[in-house]
């Protein structure tokens, strides 16, 4: 079974620019998560979707971050405008509805200069 796919794997931008990340979850996984992982720390949840609806976005900096999952399958996370402190790995994870185990993608490493 294919795992969670993410692209791009690496991105370097200058501050105030915008950037978008893409995630395709494991087939059949209705729940999708975006995490931010700053170097040396554990992942921190940004937003959780169930199908195309937002379940939890309490830790998403909504003034600059946005995410969507229009058709309930793949998802995009956008940052506009980026700040230096947004430099991190952005991880996507998915799980079956009602199941606790989350499976992670390889992540996108973002560097903001």
């Amino acid at each position, binding site marked *: 079974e294919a795992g969670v796919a993410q692209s791009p794997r690496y991105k370097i931008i200058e501050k105030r620019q915008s950037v978008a990340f893409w995630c395709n979850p494991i087939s059949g996984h209705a729940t999708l998560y975006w995490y931010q992982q700053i170097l040396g720390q554990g992942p921190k949840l940004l937003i959780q979707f169930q199908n195309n609806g937002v379940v939890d976005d309490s830790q998403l900096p909504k003034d600059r971050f946005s995410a969507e999952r229009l058709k309930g399958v793949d998802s995009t996370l956008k940052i506009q405008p980026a700040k230096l402190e947004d430099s991190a790995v952005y991880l996507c994870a998915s799980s079956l509805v009602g199941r*606790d185990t989350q499976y*992670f993608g390889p992540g996108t490493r973002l560097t903001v200069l």
Partner: protein
Amino acid sequence: GESVGLHLPTLSVQEGDNSIINCAYSNSASDYFIWYKQESGKGPQFIIDIRSNMDKRQGQRVTVLLNKTVKHLSLQIAATQPGDSAVYFCAENMRDTGFQKLVFGTGTRLLVSP
């Protein structure tokens, strides 16, 4: 706020030794715990999980122990191999309004010497 933490940031062992990675949690309402392994440049990889109604669960070369009395979780790796070198995270499931919310600790780096 409540959080998950780890006692040791780095653990160095020799190949063939048994490794024990510890984790403290503070939310007594957490009902599910999970260990992930993260190698450099990769996403977290599921290792083993345990529910709060269990004290111990075994997998292939790994065992997770849960002590709810002192809110402590540990991961035991038997016969540690160089391929086990990675950062290990514990996470607790904090159910908020009925939905799962995993809260991760900082992580412990395991270094295995041949």
